[in-house]
């Protein structure tokens, strides 16, 4: 699709303008020149002090939009003017979307790294036990332990269920039942995380009478994890070539053994990718943890009893304290959390790229 660019095109308007076969086009340097002019004028208006902050940039962008469209309208005609306008807007959308991402990453790194690395290992080895909200110090050791245990437990429950549900959809699913399952897996991806927490609270704590614990939190994460794993596994199973299945059946191997020994191993890298994406998704969930395990300032190794800290709830707690020292710790916790999530996320994508199964 990139080949299509500004080769001469014929249009009724352009033919009436000139006798040549190709319509008139703006010179190649036109966008650049318009941009420079727009920035200069925009900055001038900004410097004159009539608008606030970075708004001069918005003014410049608007000037560019108007200037280029008008110029193009005069030279190339209406259709190309609209095309240039649309192109500029679409590029703008992309830049507008990148800006917050960069800003989020930059502020987490600049504000968080300092706290994490000032006295290096202590932020990772200490807990918040007996640390005053007003004083610096303390660490996220208890939160890291909580997050790892909760995510590991929920993965241990959700992965088998998710993979088997995907096997059902791809290998066994027939008729109305399979349609419903598939539909509700999709709908389940949209269940708000706080509703998952509410459900586990009512089911596990109110009805079955257990206490708040890391395990209850893990159960609520299971609900968020299952649909992600089902969908990614399903996609992977679908691109396993049928020849493999048929060859296996031809050798007289039962269907279940074919699935376990041939189909699943072939799709393994893709399934692992899906699991890692699911882990990255749930590791950052705060809301269900607040309902099902709440906060803890000290180390709790046992996920089956008592409140347990986790990285997201650590950040939440430190923000709510509101003092300078604790907000700094919140940024530190955010840094560790985003590191944790990004390792899984980028690891998953790299894995997917390296071991990409050859789709037919």
């Amino acid at each position: 699709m990139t080949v299509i660019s500004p080769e001469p095109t014929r249009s009724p308007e352009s033919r009436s303008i000139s006798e040549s076969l190709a319509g008139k086009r703006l010179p190649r340097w036109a966008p650049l020149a318009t941009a420079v002019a727009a920035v200069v004028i925009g900055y001038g208006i900004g410097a004159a002090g009539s608008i606030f902050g970075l708004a001069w940039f918005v003014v410049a962008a608007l000037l560019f939009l108007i200037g280029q469209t008008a110029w193009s309208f005069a030279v190339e005609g209406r259709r190309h003017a609209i095309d240039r306008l649309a192109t500029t807007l679409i590029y703008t959308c992309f830049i507008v979307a990148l800006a917050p991402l960069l800003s989020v990453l930059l502020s987490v790194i600049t504000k968080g790294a300092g706290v994490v690395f000032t006295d290096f290992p202590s932020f990772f080895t200490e807990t918040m036990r007996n640390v005053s909200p007003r004083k610096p110090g303390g660490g996220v050791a208890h939160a890291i332990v909580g997050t790892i245990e909760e995510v590991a437990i929920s993965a241990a429950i959700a992965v088998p269920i998710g993979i088997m549900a995907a096997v059902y959809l791809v290998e066994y699913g027939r008729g109305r039942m399979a349609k419903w399952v598939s539909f509700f897996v999709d709908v389940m991806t949209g269940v708000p995380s706080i509703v998952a927490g509410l459900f586990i609270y009512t089911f596990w704590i109110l009805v079955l009478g257990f206490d708040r614990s890391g395990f209850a939190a893990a159960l609520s994460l299971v609900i968020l994890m299952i649909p992600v794993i089902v969908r990614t596994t399903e996609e992977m199973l679908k691109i396993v070539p049928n020849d493999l299945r048929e060859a296996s059946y031809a050798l007289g191997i039962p269907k279940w053994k074919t699935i376990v020994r041939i189909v699943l191993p072939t799709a393994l890298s893709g399934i692992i990718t899906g699991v890692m994406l699911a882990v990255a998704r749930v590791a950052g969930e705060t809301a269900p943890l607040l309902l099902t395990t709440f906060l803890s300032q000290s180390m709790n190794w046992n996920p089956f009893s008592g409140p347990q800290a986790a990285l997201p709830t650590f950040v939440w707690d430190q923000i709510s304290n509101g003092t300078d020292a604790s907000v700094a710790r919140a940024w530190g916790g955010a840094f560790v959390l985003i590191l944790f999530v990004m390792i899984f996320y980028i690891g998953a994508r790299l894995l997917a790229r390296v071991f990409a199964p050859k789709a037919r």
Partner: protein
Amino acid sequence: MSNTATENEHDPLIPHGHQQTGRVGDRIFRGFASGAGIFVLVIMGAIGAFLIWKSIPSLQADSTNFFTTTEWFPDDNPAVFGIAALLFGTVISATIAMVLAVPVGIGIALFIAFYAPRPVASTLAFITDLLAAVPSIIFGLWGLAVLMPNMQGTAQWLNDYLGWIPIFDNTLGIYSKSLFIAGVVLAIMVLPTVSAVTREVFIQVPSEHVEGALALGATRWEMVRMAVFPFSLPGMISAAMLGLGRALGETIAVALILSAAFTINWHITEPGGNSFAANIALKWNEAGPIGLSALIASGLVLFLITLVVNMLARWIVSRRKDFSGAN
């Protein structure tokens, strides 16, 4: 979208009835797989059932109309609470998010699918997807500490120049902790969802349509308008609705940014506002038995709203079988 009848050409050599050859392993394995599939249905049913069950006590105790009351004192005697303010805040913040995120998200998808040079397109797609992996607590923290101070000017400008439109009017002169800022943060959070699903739809557009339009002399924008949009309209609608579902249910970022207030205030740049999810997170630990039940009742309403939105979105998508929006 798998699972449909067309998918079943997976094993054409094995006729349907032939699987039940009496091999125990096959039957057990099939049982496990079907069980896992059914488990999904059971969970969805159980979420609804348990939330209804546990919200009944508070609904019986409520002395006012649950849908029109704007106060929240469920543990008082008599209990006074209702979801009107929550519904208002949830819908308004999600609407702001949609107004901002849908056009930009479609723009990003167009950029990656048709405008960006091929070699960089997949990297750009990866980067926008990265936005989806950032936890909501971090968006909340960022929104509170970085975005909010920088939105002051914009909100003030809206008041100064568009203040004649009632929703932009700011009578307090305070511009922080507003539904407007919450909506902007939500917009950033749902952007990856909207753009990823739309991109997936755009990639499905038959290249014959695209190349045909260009061969007839259409400009790139005309190609998009005449070949891409008509084909992918249902997908774009459902992408927007999936984003809406996310925005409605988002908890932590909204809870951090809003200064929770039980009012219906149409001046969206003023502090205040609340949402279902944020209210549950904020009130959870100070709630008594009826308070918990009341929060569960409000969670039930949120669940039903997102359920309807998501089911509509999926239904629109599933009418065209070739793509699914999930992640």
